[in-house]
Structure formats: structure tokens, C-alpha cells
């Protein structure tokens, strides 16, 4: 299969597992020989989108910037994995139309579960009014209507979600199936023979 880039766009509320799944999927795709980069929302806001806030306008600018970089990576044959809340359908759709080879992964989990998990302590602060414009609490999240992949991170294990994502990408012919090579190619055999002869083993 010739290597062609695509964008894998993780969207969902804070703490839904976007970054965790993005990293695990990246590991799997690297094993299959693909070039993969992650654009993680938290990290992007410390460099590419440093200075932007969480108003609707700033959020739109942020997600458009991420989409711009994903497009560059995709059209150069790499896999771009975006892991940002990206709460607004319109901007996600804009990126989809710009990039073309775009696969949306909705990380779905009940808000109650996320509040209970609260891995970064942000929900507690948001509920206390210490953080304004917090998606899911004081700002809207617009669920995808037609995501290619939906992972229920409230119910599924990480392994199950990763397997579902990767299997779907295989079915879409975006990633090659994993290798189960038990024999070397002819070229590899010749190289190995040469090394064995150099050392007098054959």
C-alpha cells in the first residue's frame, strides 16, 4: 500500500481520553511504518496558539491553526493526529473540507463520569466558577453528527478503543495491516547470507 497521509481528528470533552488514545494510536501506526505527528491541544496552546484564550473567536482561530498544520502534514504523506476539544461543528467541518482525507474520532463519555474522573482538576475549578468558558460546564460542546469512529471511553478500555480506531483505519485502507512476517525477503536473505559468510558461519 503506498503511503498516503491523512488526518485523524480526536474531538471530545476535556478528560475524555483524546490525548491518551492519540498516543496509543500513534505508537501503533509507527510500528506499521507510518510517519505520525500529534497536535495535542494542551501543547498547541503553549506554542502555536500561545496567547489565545477560550472565547469562541479564539477557539475558532486555534482550531483553524491546528487544521492548517494537519493539512500540511497530510498532503506531504504524514499522518496528523489532532487531539483538541474542538467544540464547534462548523470549524471541524471546515477542516474536514480543507484536508479531505479526514477521519473524525468522537471520544464520548458522560459528563458526570468526566467530572468524577477530573484528571487535571479542571472540572472542580470550573464548577466553582474559578475557570470561565469551560467546555461542558460553561461553554457548549457540539457533538459530532457523523464521526467516522465513536469510542465510548466511559465504557470501553483503552485497548478496546485503540483496536477499534486502528481496525477502522485498516478497513478504510488508510493504514496497512500489521505485519506477521515469518520469512525474510530475497533481498534480506542475501544480506544475511553475506554477513554469515563474512564470519565463516556458512
Amino acid at each position, binding site marked *: 500500500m503506498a503511503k498516503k497521509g491523512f488526518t485523524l481528528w480526536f474531538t471530545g470533552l476535556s478528560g475524555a481520553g483524546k490525548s491518551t488514545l492519540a498516543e496509543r494510536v500513534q505508537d501503533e501506526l509507527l510500528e506499521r*511504518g507510518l510517519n505520525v505527528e500529534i497536535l495535542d491541544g494542551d501543547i498547541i496552546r503553549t506554542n502555536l496558539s500561545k496567547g489565545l484564550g477560550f472565547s469562541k473567536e479564539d477557539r475558532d482561530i486555534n482550531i483553524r491553526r491546528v487544521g492548517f498544520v494537519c493539512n500540511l502534514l497530510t498532503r506531504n504523506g504524514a499522518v496528523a493526529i489532532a487531539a483538541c476539544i474542538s467544540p464547534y461543528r462548523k470549524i471541524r467541518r471546515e477542516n474536514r473540507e480543507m484536508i479531505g482525507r479526514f477521519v473524525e474520532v468522537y471520544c464520548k463519555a458522560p459528563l458526570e463520569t468526566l467530572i468524577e474522573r477530573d484528571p487535571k482538576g479542571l472540572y472542580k475549578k470550573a464548577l466553582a466558577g474559578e475557570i470561565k468558558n469551560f467546555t461542558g460546564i460553561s461553554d457548549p460542546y457540539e457533538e459530532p453528527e457523523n464521526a467516522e469512529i465513536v469510542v465510548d471511553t466511559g465504557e470501553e478500555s483503552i485497548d478496546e478503543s485503540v483496536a477499534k480506531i486502528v481496525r477502522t483505519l485498516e478497513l478504510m485502507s488508510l493504514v496497512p495491516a500489521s505485519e506477521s512476517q515469518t520469512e525474510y525477503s530475497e533481498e534480506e536473505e542475501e544480506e544475511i547470507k553475506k554477513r554469515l559468510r563474512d564470519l*565463516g558461519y556458512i
Partner: protein
Amino acid sequence: MALFGRRRKRTLVVGLDGVPHSLITRLAAAGTMPNVARLVDLGSLARMKVTLPEISAVSWPSFMTGTNPGTHGIYGFVDPKPGSYDIRFPNFRDLGAPTIWDKLGEKKKRSVVLNQPSTYPAREIPGVLVSGFVAISLPKAVYPRRALADLEKLDYRIDIDTARAREDHDYLMEDLAATLESRRRAVDHFWANEDWDYFQVVVTGTDRLMHYIWSAIDDPSHAYHDATLDYYRSVDTFIGDLYDRFTRESGRAEPGEGFFMLSDHGFCGIEQEVRVNRWLVENGFLSFETDAPRSIEEIAPNAKAFAVAPARIFLNRRGRFPKGRVDDASARAIMDEVEAGLSELTHEGRPVIEHVFERDEVYSGPRIDGAPDLVPVGHHGFDLKDTVREAEVFGRTNLTGMHTWDDAFFWSRREQAPDLEITKLADIILEEAV
């Protein structure tokens, strides 16, 4: 009184490919390897036998699984394909038993394993694996893939340039030094940046050096005598640095606990190569369909036996090989004749063969069907080979060192039982590692 938290208990294994017990003890005693000398004073440097044939392709799987080839299924660098005389190259995916690192993973212990021969192509282990010989492509020699970028930044080398080094010994010494240094960089990086309980690194330059210029080690007049000893000094420094760092971080109560060192076979000088297939031809056991055979595939149907690298002897059995005519009724007599003939073989009055082992003497397990019928072992100095292209039984090449099966070594803090064998090491190490 301050209370100390329980430190994590770690294990370190250092492999020195091909280093004989007789040599390492000599070098330690002579002051060439002072760090090894420290270890000799601290613990037990035991002489060890390895599985047969005595080559890295077999020894390392025996070490890493704690089983013999009849169980793990790897009998050589090459093997006849089932039902064929054509050869294939067994790889890590052919290994039929779990490794030390798999077993540690079951106990939630993470391993970092660097330059491990016989683990190519790399597969998932609980931790990090970088394959050694016969790895030819670094991307396929690394698990997980994310470690590849690190290795590339470190300018990591899998092996020396064996073709060039065989002919150019100045280059050999430079390449050995550069490769050892790249190994050290990799160790430093993964030691500091990976979460590990078990760390293993194998130095394979020792094997390369001894294949090519074994004769330099004991001959002060040899052009590379000093350079050879310098290389062993640098290996000793490598060992010492690793041991000292491990001692500081091992979480162990006693010095030396959790530290192990081994070789996968020994070495000695070559007096003569012994072409076993040529011997089989001259003694009526083997014939070919052509006058100048290039491989065993040209074997004649009336052939009774043939050898596969290095010198594993297979009876040309009906049902096992396509041109096989030997049946069970005649197999015993043929084996007896081959054993008797090889046992009587001499060179300038000196017996060539130490022993001819039969299959069931040295192999057991579910993969025994892949085993040869006979495994001859030469006396030190007689390097048994399978080549079919030479017209003489005895001869030489420019290689000066050969493997031995009874002179490998194992260092451990605790004394080991006599007659130590490489298949015992996995259990010994796991007992302290878990």
C-alpha cells in the same frame, strides 16, 4: 530515625559474545581487565557449557528461554526447509518458547534489552528491545518504534562492517571501538530515560575480533596484539562503569546481587577447518548429482547423510527429505558407521572429533522434529564446517578463531553448581529478578 522507602530492585545482565572462560580469567589475572578481576574476587566466574551447535544463533535463544533447541526450535543460523534441502533463515518469530523478558512482563517488570543477537526482527516485549546480529535493518530491529528516533540520533550501530573488517584489520579495530562507543551511548540513553527493572546489553565486538584475529591475543609479536588487548581493556571499562552505576541504583542489599555476566560460547584458535560434507563424500555416505555441487540441493538420491551449517548431520530419510531413501530399519547402522568413522578421523596424528552426539542426547521437547540426527563436536582447533565446494576435508581460510562449546562463562554473586549449562541461566536470573 529516618524511614527509607523500599527501593526498586533491579537486575543487570551483560553479555560478552564469544568470550571464553579461559581467556577472561587470564586477562583478569594479568591486569588487563581489572574490573572483571574485581568481580572475580566478589563472586563466582563459572565455566559453562552451551547447547549445540555452539553458535550464537542457538546459544542466545537457549539463554533467553532457558530451554534447549528441541523446545525453542532454533538449531542454527540456517535450517533445511521442511521437506526440502533448500535452506531458510530462522528468525525471532520462530522462537517457540517465552523469553526471560516475557516472563518478567508477567510479573509487571519492564526490560530494556540492547543488541541482543537472535531477536531479529524485533517483536513486542514488555519494555524496549533492540535486536543484534543478524539484524540488517535498524527500523525492523527496534521495539517500540518510538525508540528508533532515539537510536538514530545516537548514531547507533548494529554491528561492525564484517566484510571490510575481515580483510582490513586496521579498519576492524577502528570499527570495533566506534561500535562499542555507540553501544555505550545507547546504554546511557535508555538507562536514564526508560522505566526499567531489568537491563541487558550484549557486546558482540568480542566475537568479531576473535573470528578475525584470535591469533593476536597471545602473540606479543603479532601486529595487532596491543590493539587487541586495548579493546579488551575498553570492554572491561564498559563493564566496570555499568557495574558501578548499577551498584548505586540497583536497590539491592549486597554488592553484586542482581548483576550477571555471561558469554554464549567460547573461542579458540583454528588449526584446521574440517569439511564434514567432504568427509561424508569420501566415506561413501554422500554423493551428488553433479561433479561440482554448489549446495546440498544437488544431493543424489542414494545419499545416506549430509551436513548443514556448521556440521549438523541429517540422515537422508525417506519421508523427511524429497530424495530421501534411508528408512528406519537402516538408520541405526548408518549412524553407527558415521559415528565410528568420525571418531577415528585424525589430522597429523591428532584425533579430530571430541564426540558425536545423537539427537536425543542433546535435544528434547516439542520441536525435536527439526533436530539433526547427529551433532559432532571437534576437539579445540578443529573447526567443523558443512561447505560442499571444497575438494579437501582439511583446509584453512583467513579466519583464525573458532567457537567452543565447553568454555563459555557465567558470573554471578552466588556460587553455581558444577557442570553449569546455559539453559540453567534463565531460572537463576529470574529467581533474583522477580
